[in-house]
């Protein structure tokens, strides 16, 4: 005799402690098993692309800060590279090194957030999260030294950065790199030595590499399945071709692999920063007024530049009509595209795995909705 059960539809609403922002998920359960998932987003849509058509190229930098608000330096860098390609601006050496240091610090901060919140969602009631966020606070203090703001930095300008690092910065950076490595060691010990973390993250939400590539997924999610695609290696921008760093790959492509890749990438970022600090030379941090006017008017045309953001391929497509504001700006947001396979990851799994899998995608709603 078959027992008839009825699936239950639950709305994990826009306000929820674990949805990494305003994100709505309508889930249909059959007991503990997830049968159907429907994501609804757009709660944080601010019309950044339309606003960009009314702002000058320098003013748009502040818009890009607020898209992926966990890694604004990387957004700035992607946008600025697109502007420089469109306008044909050659950035200054010191500006490039500084923005690479800022970008890699930002990558570490973003991965700390992702890992800390994984452990929070796994139920460790905040203890490892606080350690990760404490380290991120130190990184944000470094940013405050660089540009005066912790989160919405607006540090980059066409051709470089807008302010040089103060004298206390380099010493603080050296000390901070040692602390970051210690915190990463602690987090990794938690991740790779805890049976409960293993049993909850291993083997869940496994995705094949062909499926990932077909779904345009890039970043740590793709590298956790063994595909060696990192834009810093494959299509080097800035001075990444003068830096040597390891390729972080994992083959398991489950939740555990994605977190492992992020922690290892954060370690590699420390390596990159050290090499940048060794190679940086004194000089101007942005081109002078004669080379690059403060109000740039790129020639007509379009340009698409993609960098390796902390969540995947972050691209900016800019169309210029010769004026002071872009005709069209489009952001290729990795968080939105990485969501494509959410149903594949969740359907068939248990409810307890929902937020763990969702967190391993490492979304940021500011970037999904823009």
């Amino acid at each position, binding site marked *: 005799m078959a027992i008839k059960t009825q699936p239950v539809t639950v709305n994990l609403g826009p306000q929820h402690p674990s949805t990494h922002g305003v994100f709505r998920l309508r889930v249909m*359960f059959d007991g503990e098993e997830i049968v159907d998932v429907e994501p609804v987003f757009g709660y944080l849509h601010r019309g950044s692309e339309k606003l960009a058509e009314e702002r000058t190229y320098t003013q748009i930098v502040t818009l890009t800060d607020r898209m992926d608000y966990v890694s604004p330096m990387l957004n700035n860098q992607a946008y600025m590279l697109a502007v420089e390609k469109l306008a044909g*601006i*050659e950035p200054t050496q010191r500006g490039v090194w500084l923005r690479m240091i800022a970008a890699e610090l930002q990558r570490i901060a973003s991965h700390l957030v992702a890992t800390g919140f994984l452990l929070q969602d796994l139920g460790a009631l905040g*203890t490892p999260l606080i350690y990760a966020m404490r380290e991120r606070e130190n990184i944000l203090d470094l940013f405050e030294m660089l540009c005066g703001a912790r989160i919405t930095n607006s540090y980059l300008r066409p051709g470089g950065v807008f302010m040089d690092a103060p004298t206390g910065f380099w010493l603080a950076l050296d000390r901070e790199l040692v602390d970051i490595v210690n915190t990463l060691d602690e987090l990794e010990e938690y991740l790779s030595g805890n049976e*409960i*973390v293993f049993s*909850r993250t291993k083997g869940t939400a496994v995705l094949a590499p062909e499926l990932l590539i077909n779904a345009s997924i890039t970043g740590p999610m793709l590298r956790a399945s063994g595909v060696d695609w990192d834009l810093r290696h494959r299509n080097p921008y800035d001075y990444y071709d003068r830096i040597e760093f390891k390729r972080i790959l994992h083959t398991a492509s489950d939740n555990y692999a994605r977190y492992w890749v992020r922690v290892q990438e954060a370690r590699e970022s420390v390596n990159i920063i050290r090499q940048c600090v060794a190679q940086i030379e004194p000089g101007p941090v942005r081109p002078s007024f004669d080379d690059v006017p403060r109000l740039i008017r790129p020639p007509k045309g379009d340009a698409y530049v993609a960098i390796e953001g902390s969540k995947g391929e972050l691209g900016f497509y800019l169309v210029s009509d010769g004026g002071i504001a872009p005709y069209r700006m489009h952001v290729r947001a990795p968080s939105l595209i990485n969501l494509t396979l959410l149903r594949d990851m969740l359907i068939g799994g248990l409810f307890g795995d929902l937020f763990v899998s969702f967190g391993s995608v490492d979304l940021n709603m500011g970037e999904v909705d823009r």
Partner: protein
Amino acid sequence: MDPAFLDNSLWRNIYCNLAGDSAGCAAREYSAGMLPTGMEWLAFALAAAAIIGLFVNGVLGGVIVLIWGERRLFGRFQTRTGPNRWGPFGLLTPVADAIKTMFKEDVVPKDADRILFNLAPVMIAAPALLVFSVIPFGVGTYVADLNVGVLFIMAVTSLTTLAVLTAAWSSGNRIAILSAFRSVALLISYEIPMALALVGVIMLAGSMSLGQIIGAQSIPFILVQPLAVFVFFIAAMAEMARAPFDLTEAESELAAGYLNDYASMKFGIFFLAEFMAEISTSAIITVLFLSGWRGWEPVPSHLWFGAKLILVLFVIIWFRMTLPRLRIDQVLKLAWKGLFELTLINIIVTAVLIAIWPEPTTTRLWIMAAVNWPVAIISIWAVSKLLGTSGYDDTEPDSDAPVYPVATEQIPGSAVHISGVTGPDTQARMSSPANSHIEQGGN
């Protein structure tokens, strides 16, 4: 007056001072009391009320101190201070919590079953308090020393299951019921290992009465019954729905689950009941495994009990703050496939040892301890192999996996687009005549 009652020194102090004429009191050289001769029933009632009042207030006071202590400890584990605003060292924080909770609006959902909704907090708080009636806090300090004390404790703590289900069902809320089902599955699965773990202790002490169990612990039973304390500790944490088993109140998932619809003081009572359960579990562990109030002479027995209680509480809070949560299927698997077998092994081994030495003396207890510890370690190792560890070995990438081809070929050179504008990845500047307006297209 039954002489057994008068063994209870607390009772004796109050009753004998009140009762006018009591043979038992006179036999213990207590002077006659204040009330006239025929009113022993009044003395009885007053003494009972006084003791119950003392215990209930004591427990609630303990809960208040525990709330403060737990939050300070949370802070310390997270390298921060913890509450330090209200009162010196934040000691008045629980008072502030209580005032805040009392002044909130008491919302009852429209679809709620009012009678059950109001009854559920009572159903959960009453058993939590009842447990304290058999626990001795020091020499002769208890409400009653039932000769089926352990059975009473087990029976009373299992009433929480019903209360949880009532609370969720009467809320009329889908998410609450979902959470309550998981909670009920958890609670009933862990009652069996919890009860069976105590069988070994009962066999060693020869009685279910808590006073006699303390009397039998010439060495604490934690040394003699390692398997039992291991299983009981884990099962008790699951019964209290504490991390790593707090999937029912998983704040990061279902946002308080079955307690979703309770506001104000009803929620406060659930909250209190959880802390009372914590103290009672720690007290049970102290009495049954750490030899209760026994200790070396100069220090009073109440202090020994208190110190051991605080130690057990510390370990429980430590576990809560460091371990992540288990999923429901993993939790149930642990109970039925893991802890159950360990309890059976413990019972068999203890039964064999008791059959050899029915009335163990202290040296015999040490020998039993020496036998039990290797048995415990081997059986825990064996059960963990049975349950299957999730592979500490394959955390690293698998080098034999097929590699997706990346950058293995190239497009023909004639097809490459030479850009007319320079970018940061080329060397030429825009003003360089060699590079401006390069003709597009290949070949």
